[in-house]
């Protein structure tokens, strides 16, 4: 069996403001998660930042990192979420 991927997609959606990347990467770094890639498309409807993050080296469990990201989002008035990459793989790749 193929080993399950440890990569998650972190999405930040809301109004653009100073310190988004710093804050999000701060949470990720303190959990030992490695950022592989960042993309920052400005969509018609909202600002979005998308990060691919590898949890292979993470010192905290996924649930905890996700909780901290959600909290940080609330603090900054943004919606920050983390989802396993398979969601996007399944929907958009066969």
């Amino acid at each position, binding site marked *: 069996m193929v080993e399950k991927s440890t990569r998650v*997609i972190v999405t930040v959606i809301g109004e653009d403001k100073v310190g988004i990347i710093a804050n999000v990467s701060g949470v990720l770094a303190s959990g030992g998660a490695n950022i592989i*890639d960042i993309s920052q498309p400005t*969509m018609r409807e909202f600002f979005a930042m998308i990060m*691919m993050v590898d949890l292979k080296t993470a010192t905290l469990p996924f*649930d905890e990192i996700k909780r901290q990201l959600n909290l940080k989002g609330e603090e900054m008035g943004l919606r920050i979420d983390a989802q396993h990459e*398979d*969601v996007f793989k*399944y929907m958009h790749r066969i």
Partner: protein
Amino acid sequence: MSLQFSAQEIIETIRMVQMEKLDIRTITLGISLRDCAHPEIAIAASKAYDKICRLGGRLVRVGEEIEREYGIPIINKRVSVTPVAIIAESSREDSHVVFAKALDRAAREVGVNFLGGFSALVHKGMTRGDRVLIESIPEALAITERVCASVNVGTTRAGINMDAVAQMGRIVCETARRTASQDGIGCAKLVVFCNAVEDNPFMAGAFHGIGEPECVINVGVSGPGVVLAAIRDKADLDFGQLANEIKRTAFKVTRMGELVGRAASEKLGVPFGIVDVSLAPTPAQGDSVARILEAMGLERVGAHGSTAALALLNDAVKKGGAMASSHVGGLSGAFIPVSEDEGMIEAAQMGAITFDKLEAMTSVCSVGLDMIAIPGDTPPETIAAIIADEAAIGMINRKTTAVRVIPAPGKKPGDMVEFGGLLGRAPVMTLNAYSSSRFVARGGRIPAPLQALGN
């Protein structure tokens, strides 16, 4: 950039979930109770309770884990069991209510809001156990909270058991009477089928068929809002292009079901059965099948053209879904319940959609007359005749049809009935006032139809 996905794709997924109400409607654990039969019904019931708690104990936790991991809401976690008549008839008791109570306790213990399978398959005839189970339905649904019942009264291969149909007319009335203080809500947990499927994950009609394995995980996806968003404001598309948009969307929605089903199967150590590719509306704004039909160009659902629009929708959903999953099954199509669909409720209130038009639409939708409130004084023979009509549509068209009507005690046409939650609210619809009682009283079976000469 080197992400494997484009930003647009990621945003599309997020938008579907956050704005268009894409969700997994249910993960349903099917459990065989065939090894629970016992001459003492109390012992059989307690064996069933133990087995459901043992196999289903982790279902809710695993469901929540998957929700967190993938960020896709899973609205319901449910359990279906072998039709109870088959298990409970080893006893010589005159009631199966004690079994229903045990199922209710088991459902509460494992934390599922509905458990399906207080059921009997009587399309060709009844055993003693079937008869006892059916007679137990009104009391069972009145005193339990989470148990759902279903009875299959016809198939394309066997014809329609009209004795069972007549009896179900009485059972529906009695179930309403016993839950009169809640507008007859017991009937919302009772489905009368023709061509019932063995792997349906959706309530209230779910049961674990006798051809199914020991234990299986089935997934019901939904997403009327996603389909609506895909075709809204696209007035310039012709029907072929419209069908393509729907197929494309159904494909993506079904992929989510496939992912969740595989994850649940792996985490629970239970084989993955099927994805049921259904558009299951909820009373929430923007989660309506009726609004999809209206977006196709109908002023209101129920207008002439509604049947054609639904036929296109139902077929396109199946086509898109069939390509997206290794095993598509269950009911798979568009549901058209009234009380659970905000657009249907509105159309029914303004008289745009009638009972007869709904019946016509069931010939091309995935199931049947669903969650329709009818006058409280409707005679049992009329309800039986409604069931007979619906079963005939299923029998001839080789499809599943069902009746889930609620004769709301004390209510007249136009009154509103409130069921609450996912069950929603509905105006009481007007029925044909002429009697069918002499027809229903004939008894016997309607013969199975020819499978050739198919016009």
